[in-house]
């Protein structure tokens, strides 16, 4: 029995808490256990580019900016400016 007016007019807030948690946790549990998408992309991009160019793995940065309509995937790869290394890697 829920009689909010008996308690100074305040409505019970626990049902709101319960509903919010149920929605949130259903979402979070769905994400759990999946590999981190950005880490996966980073590893694959690194392996593809490394076939042709000598790279410092630390200098491969993959970022995702999430927007309302579209998201921006940004890949930032720093390539050392040494001609010999380029040639060595390509040949």
């Amino acid at each position: 029995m829920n009689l909010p007016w008996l308690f100074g007019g305040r409505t019970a807030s626990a049902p709101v808490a319960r509903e919010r948690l149920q929605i949130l946790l259903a979402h979070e549990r769905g994400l759990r256990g999946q590999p981190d998408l950005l880490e996966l992309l980073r590893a694959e991009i690194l392996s593809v580019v490394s076939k042709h160019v000598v790279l410092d793995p630390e200098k491969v940065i993959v970022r995702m900016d999430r927007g309302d309509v579209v998201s921006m995937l940004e890949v930032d790869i720093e390539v050392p400016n040494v001609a010999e290394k380029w040639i060595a890697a390509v040949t």
Partner: protein
Amino acid sequence: MAKVLVVTSGKGGVGKTTSTAALGATLAQMGQKVVVIDFDVGLRNLDLVLGAERRVVFDFINVVQGIANLSQALIRDKRLDNLWLLPASQTKDKDALTEEGVSKIIAELRTRFDWIVCDSPAGIERGAMLAMRYADEAVIITNPEVSSVRDSDRIIGMLDSKTVKAEQGGRVEKHLLITRFDTARAARGEMLSIDDVLEILGIPLLGIIPESQDVLRASNVGSPVTLNDASSAPARAYIDAARRLMGESVAMTVPTPRKGLMDRLLGRRAA
């Protein structure tokens, strides 16, 4: 067979250390040989709650690094012969606690104790991971409040994936301990009810610890709440929970404070 029990929550300030001290002390009183380990490197507090802060000479990391042996670092409780404390380091670098070091110490403690109770730090970082790493069982401390419930859910996910037990295809046995529960507020719909929390988290209930001033009173004087006043409501709830950990079946109730005559006459709300 020794059991490794982690007391964990994700969120801070929900009662991990209080619960570790109370459950550890009660298991010791039941005749079990118990060691409680503080995993909160840099922010140790289990020593303080147990009233052993002035007796700490060596700590967990000293043992990991081989500066001291286990026997030198273990502190025996002054009230209970069966209760021992392995304190966390207060000053050293957190990275000094290695998985290998923890593994070795837990293995050695398993040969000497019935219960190894690991008091986890808050968060989901290294310290919390190491505290749960070798656990056979887990007590998840949850307040009936949204952020605590969410963090507990996260911790449950980690217990199911990041522990040695889970990696070997087994399961860490999980128990939910709801702390700071206020029956009246839950009845008025101001606080998540026990059923709400159980339905959301989906793990079996170990006990319900009522919100009480007795908890602060006990930590003020450095005594587990179960030893400071065994008849207080939170103490009775912890004692019931410890009995359930030992496999006894105890009816689930929320202990209420026993009111004195004056309280009754004056209609005073219990503390």
